[in-house]
């Protein structure tokens, strides 16, 4: 064993005294499995980002410009004058510690610098040194420190160990949102070309080709055609979507992950089947083929540049309104940023469901509706013929995605849809759902392969709650409305609770959906045989009261 101190020594160390060195004097150690590779010159050049060069975070030399300190200090100054959130959050923290153990990365890693308060102090300490009188005069005594290379590396390491999930901001008495600090931190790092390739690659691809995966138009069409073949095999129905079609009523935009990787593809098949069944007059776009926005994880400006395509395409195609697929950070952006950046969308109309006539007043200005709102409305109005028994082999729980939870408040709609498509639904324990939901551990562009240990650690709090309902109720499926969740939770569950699968909500909808003229279904969308009783399907047409089987999920065992 590498280091095994004698018992007496050990007992001394179990005195639990805090580290001898304060956090300012504990240098950052860049550990394998805990960071993502640095962005490549090629990706940075594509979008015109500064200091484009190939670099390796584990090497001593990060190939920084000579005046990097000056660039950062000026960058901070500029952002202090532009963002009240940033200025305020630099000033008002009282370090009460309420946020300390609320971060999934802190819970999973135990690293004190993953406490939200300390993550922000990494930045505040520099702010004090260069922008406040006490900091200038008293220095360390006032919690101020010089911006040196160690500090810079620490910033890089820890601002890319935050998924901007905003759970801490729920508990902060002043609403301090670490995501705001992380976002500014990443923008500053961006000024020196210190991005990660896992976000910069998709950003560059999205800029040039319209989506993160870099799918070219014919590939998008091909991909969807493959799904159409599968749908035909399963249902006997030929679905015929259109692309870049002018004059359609609705433009549909979804994260490109759904086009490509399982299990997102099944969710995508769900959209295709639902829209076909409704006879919806809608079109896909190959230009605005990305709902998500990895630009949001580099800089505000980049996010705006990528986001602009959605309104531009809606205008070019002359649609009336826009429908958005299941995604997390995509909806934070659409709800809180899009209209401000690229609006007003006065060339569109307030979204109105052509099937039910419901007008979505809550999207009066953005003209963009979430598909889960759209589908919940369909079910409420009895427009869908759903056979819940087809999902009887599933015991489902719902994971609230950070961004739709804390950046929007989309709680009841997905639950309503799930309860109307599945007979068995169980909530995870209080304190782990809704506004207090735990991040999947891979959000904000951290779902790379090389930081797998970080992701699994950060995913533990969520997986732990899922494990609890798995053991207590036999839950075997974790539903969610986020493309990153579908990819990341699949991996996390596979490690922590292998018996629990991951699904998008519209996969559940499509499996339950009895389509006009379909053949008898032998399998579900994943190709697994359906285990259905022989008798006639009892049709639960829409508005049937959702049979709530939740046991409340209270954890007081």
């Amino acid at each position: 064993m590498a280091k095994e101190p004698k018992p007496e020594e050990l007992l001394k160390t179990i005195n639990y005294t805090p580290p001898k060195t304060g956090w300012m004097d504990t240098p950052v150690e860049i550990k394998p499995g805990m960071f993502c590779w640095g962005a490549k010159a090629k990706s940075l050049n594509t979008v015109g980002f500064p200091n484009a060069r190939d670099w390796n975070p584990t090497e001593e030399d990060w190939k920084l410009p000579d005046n990097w300190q000056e660039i950062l200090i000026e960058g901070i100054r500029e952002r202090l004058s532009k963002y009240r959130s940033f200025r305020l959050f630099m000033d008002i923290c009282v370090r009460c510690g309420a946020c300390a153990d609320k971060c999934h990365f802190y819970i999973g890693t135990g690293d004190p610098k993953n406490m939200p308060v300390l993550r922000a102090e990494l930045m505040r300490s520099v702010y004090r040194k260069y922008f406040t009188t006490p900091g200038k005069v008293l220095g360390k005594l006032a919690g101020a420190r010089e911006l040196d290379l160690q500090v810079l590396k620490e910033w890089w390491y820890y601002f890319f160990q935050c998924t901007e999930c905003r759970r801490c901001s729920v508990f902060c008495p002043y609403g301090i949102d670490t995501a705001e600090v992380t976002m500014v931190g990443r923008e500053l790092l961006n000024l020196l070309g210190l991005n990660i390739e896992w976000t910069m690659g998709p950003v560059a691809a999205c800029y040039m080709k319209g989506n993160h995966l870099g799918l070219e138009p014919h590939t998008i069409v091909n991909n969807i055609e493959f799904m159409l073949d599968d749908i035909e095999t399963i249902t006997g129905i030929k679905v015929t979507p259109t692309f870049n079609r002018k004059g359609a009523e609705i433009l549909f935009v979804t994260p490109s992950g759904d086009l490509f990787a399982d299990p997102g593809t099944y969710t995508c098949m769900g959209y295709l089947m639902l829209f076909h069944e409704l006879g919806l007059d809608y079109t896909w776009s190959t230009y605005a083929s990305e709902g998500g926005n990895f630009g949001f994880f580099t800089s505000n400006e980049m996010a705006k540049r990528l986001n602009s395509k959605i309104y531009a395409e809606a205008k070019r195609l002359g649609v009336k309104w826009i429908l958005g697929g299941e995604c997390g950070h995509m909806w934070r952006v659409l709800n809180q940023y899009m209209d401000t950046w690229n609006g007003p969308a006065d060339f569109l109309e307030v979204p109105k469901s052509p099937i039910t006539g419901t007008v979505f007043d809550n999207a009066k200005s953005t003209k963009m509706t979430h598909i889960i709102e759209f589908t919940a409305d369909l079910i409420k109005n009895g427009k869908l013929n759903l056979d819940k028994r087809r999902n009887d082999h599933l015991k489902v729980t719902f994971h609230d995605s950070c961004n739709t939870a804390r950046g929007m408040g989309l709680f009841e709609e997905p639950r309503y849809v799930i309860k109307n498509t599945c007979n068995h639904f169980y909530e995870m324990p209080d304190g782990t759902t809704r506004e207090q939901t735990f991040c999947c551990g891979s959000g904000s562009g951290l779902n790379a392969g090389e930081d797998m240990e970080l992701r699994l650690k950060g995913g533990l709090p969520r997986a732990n709650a899922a494990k609890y309902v798995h053991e207590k109720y036999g839950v075997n499926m974790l539903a969610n409305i986020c493309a990153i969740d579908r990819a990341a939770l699949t991996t996390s569950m596979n490690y922590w609770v292998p018996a629990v699968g991951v699904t998008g909500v519209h996969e559940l909808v499509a499996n339950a959906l009895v389509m006009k003229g379909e053949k008898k279904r032998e399998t579900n969308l994943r190709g697994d045989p359906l285990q259905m009783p022989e008798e006639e399907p009892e049709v639960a047409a829409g508005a049937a009261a959702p049979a709530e089987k939740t046991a409340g999920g209270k954890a007081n065992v």
Partner: protein
Amino acid sequence: MDLKSFLSEKRQAVLERWLDYVLSSYPSQTAEFLKNRKNQFANPVGNIISEGIGGVFDAVLADLEAGGQSDSGVADFLENIIKVRAIQDFSASEALGFVFSLKRAVRGEIDALGEDGEGFYKELGRLDGSVDKIALAAFDVYVRCREKIYELKADEVRKHTFRLLQQANLICETLPRKGGENDDNPEEKIG
């Protein structure tokens, strides 16, 4: 009293010692959090560790009782702890060292008895045997966890490229054709 009954009686005390040894492998500030935060959802790591070592301890007692012949699985408990330790910043030896520290915890408890405890020293050999057995099992679990991590990485890449290969007609198209998600292949699962 034989060692087994003594340890059953002192279960709580031994476990506390053992937990302290396990937690001492973490930075002290972290150890404090892991130890004191009792909520199983707010502190999953700490809870998995305390529950896990309890389970392993009971398995050791059972093995002692069965005269070293017990084959009842400790894999579940071990697995829960090791899954956590396999992704923390430990080398293999550090990650698994906690098993051996049970020996120290038991000896510490016996030492505390002074002369009264001398009778137990004879039996310690058997205890060590049981602990070693579990340590070997732990090694298997650890390797499985690490393999699983690499498999997950490979899986993600596979999922990302599957459709491309499919389009290039490099994969024959039959249903089912999943990218490894929830494969019910017991070999692949950790447990």
